[in-house]
């Protein structure tokens, strides 16, 4: 059974169509990435799934219920990380988590949550003294405190430095290994590639591509082979990387040369994504 099923979802704000009839499903235990530039409709979609906004048309089922009419029992089962990190600045990390834990019938033990998001050293620090990355981790902790089955993460690492992003990714992978279903929005392509089992690329409120990151990168473009020859950079694109590579290395070995700086790579999701959105632009 799917954790999330969306069929032909539509939402407009006045004349502006934010979401123009999208369909996708998220299986239980899956990390699903909604990827797209700002204004593509990611947050609108997620906020409809979270029960914040009413849809104009289409069917939406989240954990077997329609979020528009879902009750407290349903909210026990979801965790939400919004884009803004709204907190009670005067409380400590533990107090903040304690306040929110009280809203759930079976909260996850506080120390477990603190450990899960790596705030052991900040347990008794006031929220207002936390760094940006620590706040965002507390944000995640607040979403996890009810021990939800399904977690919504709306741009969880926006504004992070690279180290903080790596740590956040580790935490999210940890959640996946606990069997949580995660719906992630991001405009960072590498983030989707790193974390998501499947990705849907959203543009102007429509899904322009979807699949596993490997599928997206696998189908879209050829493999790229790069090396340097006499100080000159050679770049080749091929549908038959095995054959081409064999030929190149055979020739090089025959000449007793090294293929300097040899690099064989698939296009990154970023390149696929840019090509997708460029095509959409042209169309």
């Amino acid at each position, binding site marked *: 059974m799917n954790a999330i099923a969306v069929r032909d979802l539509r939402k407009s704000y006045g004349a502006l169509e934010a979401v123009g009839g999208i369909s996708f499903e998220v299986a239980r235990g899956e990390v699903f990435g909604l990827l797209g530039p700002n204004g593509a409709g990611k947050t609108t979609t997620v906020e409809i799934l*979270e*029960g*914040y906004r009413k849809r104009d048309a289409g069917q939406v089922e989240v954990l077997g219920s329609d979020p528009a009419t879902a009750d*407290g*029992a349903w*909210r*026990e089962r*979801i965790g*939400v990380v*919004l884009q*803004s*990190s*709204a*907190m*009670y600045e*005067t*409380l400590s990390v533990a*107090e903040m988590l304690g*306040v*929110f834990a*009280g*809203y*759930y*019938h079976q909260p996850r033990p506080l120390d477990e949550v603190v450990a899960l998001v790596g705030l052991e050293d900040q347990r008794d620090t006031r929220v207002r003294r936390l760094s940006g990355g620590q706040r965002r981790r507390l944000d995640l902790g*607040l979403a996890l405190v*009810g021990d939800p089955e399904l977690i919504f993460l709306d741009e969880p690492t926006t504004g992070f430095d690279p180290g903080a992003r790596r740590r956040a990714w580790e935490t999210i992978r940890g959640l996946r290994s606990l069997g949580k279903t995660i719906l992630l929005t991001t405009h960072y392509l590498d983030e989707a590639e790193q974390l998501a089992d499947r990705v849907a690329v959203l543009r102007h409120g429509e899904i322009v591509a979807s699949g596993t990151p490997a599928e997206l990168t696998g189908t879209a473009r050829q493999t790229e082979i790069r090396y340097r020859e006499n100080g000159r950079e050679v770049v080749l694109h091929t549908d038959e990387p095995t054959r081409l590579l064999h030929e190149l290395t055979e020739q090089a070995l025959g000449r007793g040369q090294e293929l300097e700086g040899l690099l064989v790579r698939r296009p990154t999701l970023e390149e696929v994504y840019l090509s997708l959105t460029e095509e959409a632009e042209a169309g």
Partner: protein
Amino acid sequence: MKLLWHEVKAELLLYTRSRELAFFTFLLPMIFFVLLGSTYGNDTVDGVKGSRFLEAGMIGYGAISIAFAGLAIVLVIRRENGILKRLRATPLPAWAYISALLSAFLLAFAVEVVGIILLGRVLFGIPVPDHLGSLALALLLGAVAFCGLGVGLTAVIRSAEGASAVVNAIYLPAAFLAGAFFSPRHFPQVLRAIADVLPLTYFLRLVRNVMLHGHEIWTQGTNVAVIAAWGAVGVVVALRYFRWEPHEG
């Protein structure tokens, strides 16, 4: 019920942690009581001892500071920074949240009243008021009405930055005009005309009639009706326009 109590405790913790709330809404009425009481406490104001006139005035000022001004500012800030939106994603029901928030502010006001009465007893030798039942009912009515108005007011404030400015611009002049600090008897006609529509005017009359003149609350039909009507206006506006989400940039 357990949930409600949990949230009341959380709100009380938040209230006591906030220096702004503690000072402006809680301590300031007591400070004014001491300061003004030492200047005209022994004079006769409106036929009663100045300190007693002021004591009732500061209870009214405390009510509008805590239940109206403090509540409105806290709610706008929480709405605009996204706390309310975050709460909507949790199983905490809206009614439990609002009830707990109001309970915490009413409790803070109750402590304030006790504090003012104790100060009056110790510093100015004012006896503890009789008709305590009527007084408690009058204070509850006023505080609830000001809560309603405070929540209603949040509908017209669009930013956290604007919250203090708008609220202060309303409740400070209101407290002055209604006669919390000084007798309005010698105010110019214009100001008295304005005061005549303010709910605080009727609340102060009610509290003074009970505390200073020995009236029971059931003899105070007009005052009670005006206060209740104002409270109802606030509640109607709140029910119609209250929002959980911030105004987007």
